[in-house]
């Protein structure tokens, strides 16, 4: 049990680091979804089933969907990341 919990923490933290470091914005959005999903799995393992389901559907699914819908509406130039 303990190991499962700790195992879920790895994608959570690694994914979060990836979100803030990855260059491409679209990948960052997808990675954010991965982080949310790992959080949902973590909630599941911890026994907070209500939270897990809500996190999976609302926090992961819908938030990513909203991100992607607004992504589609951004002008081409805005999607690029400036190189500093």
């Amino acid at each position, binding site marked *: 049990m303990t190991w499962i919990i*700790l195992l879920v923490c790895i994608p*959570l933290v690694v994914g979060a680091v990836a979100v803030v470091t990855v260059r491409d914005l679209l990948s960052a959005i997808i990675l954010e979804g991965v982080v949310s999903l790992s959080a949902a799995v973590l909630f599941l393992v911890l026994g907070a089933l209500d939270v897990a389901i809500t996190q999976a559907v609302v926090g992961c699914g819908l938030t990513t969907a909203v991100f992607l819908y607004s992504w589609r509406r951004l002008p081409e130039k805005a999607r690029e990341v400036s190189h500093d």
Partner: protein
Amino acid sequence: MNVVHLVAISALSLFGIGLYGLWSGRNVLRWILAVGLMETGINVFLVLTGWYPGARVPIITESFSTSGPVPFLDPVPSALVLTSIVIGLGTTTLALALAILHARSHGTLECEADPETAEVLE
């Protein structure tokens, strides 16, 4: 140091990574993502405050007995986290609308300090 502490540290590091994301970049979309990370971290932390090894799903079934300790995960933080997740979705939606406005008026998502508004004390 046990498993609770390790999970709590991951939750707190999510909070810290979000802060780093806010601080290191200028991109509005990345800011929104970073705030999302902070919220996720806090939600995990909050659920964890009600957890202990062996905690069960807080639904009353046959095996529940009124005497003795309640074998459940503390349901109050779970209820708070439900609220916080939905609030997070709301603020994210609004922030994305602002990001679209920004892209519309500046053609980019890089949010520099406005030279017009950067004056005294800013």
